[in-house]
């Protein structure tokens, strides 16, 4: 099984310096010189920046002038520049799949300081690519039509923005929201920083627009259950949960809610600070306007009695018999805007939330200061009447802490400043303390807002709070909550007695984000946030074609950033719809029918059911449109008659031989005496100089 390269292979190899990114660690000139001596290699060069237009010109002119039939570029990760160089090949008239990339930056020069070992590894990677490319065959990308409808998951400000952008551009959108109303977290807020505009005033018109838009199908109180297909052709199955309200008949008059005799603590919209009825709309401006019966708490469902809502409903819209509805539809693209969960402050017991009555979370405080909230906007202690004379606001609760979340939640500093302002505004005599590690105020008008709070007389104490306790030590502490902290600017431990403590809880990924990412077959990082295609250059696309992300589902961010990302995702989707078709990588499996034994092992292995068995001919066949190119069937075929385009056995076997050039017993390499010195000292600081 010695894989002889095809006769006509004339290979050009280009070793990139990437400035000093590669050249500093890998002896690029030596690699180019050495590979020039290898079989089938006609041209071998090293060059400062291969991805530059001059670098690409080099490839193009060599193809034309030297009659190259295959190209290898040793540079960065193919995820960075494979497309770039394929383009160069194509412009020179070479099929773009006659190209292979060797990753000697991310996988080599950046991963070690040892020049000798890095150079040796670079040679191995380049030789692997050279041997592989010799077996490449011309391939054509597969065109796929794009269905112009789009699914948007999540009806917070991110999803609302995406849906409206697309709908206003004339495209149809299915907006799926889990809760009874759209609006998301933004609907819970009172004021928004730093301009202090009223959150509801700017959000509710957009919610209404969504509810009335002819291009938007709003599926609230619904969840996506199944996602099938691929870019251009997704089939979506949604469960529309029973509201027990006939939407045709309901006018949204609210009488049912008024008459319902039972109330429960509202842990969602009111963040646990207030109550709601069992038949309820989360808030008066809810979109859609229809209420929902909370089956778990409803007296009728629990004991078969009551029916107060049904008795009083003027339009007979209450329907206890209603069942969940399963809806299926087709879309071409998907935008996930599923938002965030607030960090559960009870996980840090030393801050006392759940034990000490007057410790509140930030979301509780948002509801408290909201004029439509449980206290009508009055700032009071848990007893509902006493106004606090002193308030402590603790930053970084659950954020910037390896025990919980290592990342900075980005919005807490600013909303904590906003809270301080609101306390000053409503309780002018109250003392306000902000306990912070660093004040992070990067944004338009943000730093200025911080200065405004300094002016308003907020006490800023730099130190992460150690604990909040009711254990008084000194006379002044009796009956108070004591915030114990190191004032790091003084270098002394301080104990500040206050009446009220607000915990500025961080943002975390939705508790079920992992399941959601699996449902949509896309990536989720360690913290549970969805992974973008590129952190800088492609922040709304994902690794999965046709699936985009927006808002806090991707990572903590404030409203302006969320809106920008929602609109960006819409623009990306609109671009694809406008294009009508996309080209897909032709990495697909193919069964050589004449050799197929009909054992059917591959049939059950395929996760996409893309392999059908023809009873008449007793052979299996891959449906190209369904195949995603994973290659599992290729590896499993006992007769070895399934080939995976661009990942054939010959290609991989040759690559194995190549990467082992120096240790092969049959190969041209001598037994190596590689001295790899584990570098220890002088660990480099990461530098930001990616091209």
């Amino acid at each position, binding site marked *: 099984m010695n894989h002889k390269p095809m006769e006509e292979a004339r290979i050009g190899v280009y070793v990139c310096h990437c400035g000093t990114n590669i050249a500093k660690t890998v002896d690029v000139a030596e690699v180019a010189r050495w590979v020039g001596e290898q079989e089938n290699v006609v041209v071998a060069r090293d060059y400062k920046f291969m991805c530059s237009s001059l670098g690409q010109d080099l490839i193009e002119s060599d193809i034309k002038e030297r009659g190259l039939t295959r190209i290898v570029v040793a540079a960065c990760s193919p995820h960075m520049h494979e497309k770039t160089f394929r383009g160069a090949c194509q412009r020179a008239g070479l099929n773009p799949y006659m190209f292979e990339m060797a990753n000697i930056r991310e996988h080599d020069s950046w991963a070690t300081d040892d020049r000798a070992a890095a150079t040796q590894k670079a040679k191995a990677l380049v030789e692997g690519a050279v041997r592989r490319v010799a077996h490449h065959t011309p391939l054509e990308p597969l065109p796929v039509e794009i269905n112009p409808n789009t699914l948007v998951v999540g009806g917070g400000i991110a999803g609302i923005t995406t849906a409206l952008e697309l709908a206003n551009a004339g495209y149809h959108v299915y907006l799926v929201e889990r809760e009874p109303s759209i609006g998301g977290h933004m609907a819970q807020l009172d004021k928004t920083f730093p301009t202090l505009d009223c959150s509801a005033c700017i959000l509710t018109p957009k919610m209404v627009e969504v509810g009335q838009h002819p291009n938007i199908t709003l599926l609230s109180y619904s969840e996506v259950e199944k996602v099938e297909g691929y870019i251009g052709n997704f089939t979506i199955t949604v469960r529309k949960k029973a509201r027990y309200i006939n939407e045709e008949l309901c006018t949204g008059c609210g009488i049912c809610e008024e008459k319902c005799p039972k109330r429960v603590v509202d842990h969602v919209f009111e963040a646990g600070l207030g109550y709601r009825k069992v038949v309820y709309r989360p808030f008066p401006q809810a979109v859609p306007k229809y209420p929902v019966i909370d089956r778990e708490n409803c007296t009728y469902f629990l004991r078969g009695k009551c029916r107060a809502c049904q008795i009083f409903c003027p339009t007979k819209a209450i329907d206890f018999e209603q069942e969940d509805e399963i809806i299926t539809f087709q879309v071409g693209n998907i935008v996930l805007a599923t938002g965030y969960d607030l960090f559960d402050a009870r996980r840090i017991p030393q801050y006392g939330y759940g034990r000490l009555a007057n410790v509140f979370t930030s979301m509780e405080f948002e509801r408290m200061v909201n004029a439509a909230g449980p206290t009508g906007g009055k700032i009071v202690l848990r007893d509902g009447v006493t106004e606090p004379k002193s308030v402590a606001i603790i930053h970084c609760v659950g954020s910037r802490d390896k025990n919980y979340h290592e990342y900075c939640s980005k919005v807490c500093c600013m909303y904590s400043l906003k809270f301080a302002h609101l306390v000053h505004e409503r309780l002018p005599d109250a003392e306000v303390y902000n306990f912070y590690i660093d004040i992070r105020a990067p944004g338009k008008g943000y730093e200025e807002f911080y200065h405004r709070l300094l002016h308003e007389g907020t006490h800023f104490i730099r130190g992460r709070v150690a604990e909040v306790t009711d254990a008084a030590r000194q006379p002044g502490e009796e009956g108070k909550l004591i915030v114990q902290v190191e004032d790091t600017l003084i270098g002394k431990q301080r104990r500040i007695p206050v009446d009220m403590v607000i915990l500025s809880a961080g943002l975390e990924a939705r508790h079920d984000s992992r399941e959601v990412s699996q449902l949509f077959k896309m990536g989720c990082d360690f913290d549970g946030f969805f992974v973008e295609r590129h952190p800088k250059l492609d922040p709304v696309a994902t*690794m999965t074609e046709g699936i985009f992300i927006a808002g806090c589902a991707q990572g903590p961010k404030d409203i302006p950033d969320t809106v920008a990302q929602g609109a960006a995702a819409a623009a990306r989707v609109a671009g694809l719809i406008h294009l009508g078709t996309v080209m897909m990588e032709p990495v697909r499996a193919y069964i050589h029918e004449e050799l197929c034994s009909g054992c059917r092992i591959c049939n059950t292995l395929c*996760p996409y059911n893309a392999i059908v068995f023809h009873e008449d001919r007793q052979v299996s066949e891959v449906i190209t449109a369904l195949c995603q190119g994973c290659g599992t069937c290729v590896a499993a075929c006992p007769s070895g008659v399934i080939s995976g385009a661009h990942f054939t056995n010959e290609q991989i076997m040759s690559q194995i031989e190549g990467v082992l050039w120096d240790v092969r017993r049959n190969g041209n390499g001598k037994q190596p005496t590689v001295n790899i010195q584990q570098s220890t000292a002088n660990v480099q600081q990461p530098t930001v100089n990616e091209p």
Partner: protein
Amino acid sequence: MTESFEPVIVGFLCNWCSYRAADLAGTARIHYAPNMRPIRVMCSGRVDPQFVLKALREGADGVMIAGCHPGECHYVNGNIKTLRRYHLLKRMLKQLGVEEERVQLVWASASEGKQLAEAVDRMTEQLRALGPLRWPERVLGEDGRGANGHEAFVSAIEPREEVAA
């Protein structure tokens, strides 16, 4: 600088998770042993046991197969199939007298650059301790016909023309 044995590891990295984990390790400038030479496959499920045997036969001292975590496969469950194959392969290699540590299956998501780098470091350490594989001597025996009385077995996985070469 010490004159010590440096193992060569062939790494089969899945395009969606582990390959990107290795990219991330580089981007984050996490330094780790340069002994692993990665080969990209679309899914760890594409790793044919033949590839592993080929690599060991061609002089690698170990093979690392790296894929997405179970339940996070880009292709639904390709990695589960890898896992099953891996266990069968391990059993076979054990019979041939190849130490367990030489073929390892690792899960690394795209965000786990550090974990992947640590896995490479760990495996490199283990193989340094084990020493070179020396497939011909160990598996084929002096006469190239199988060292442990596995002639038939060996001939099945070891194509004849190669043995002769």
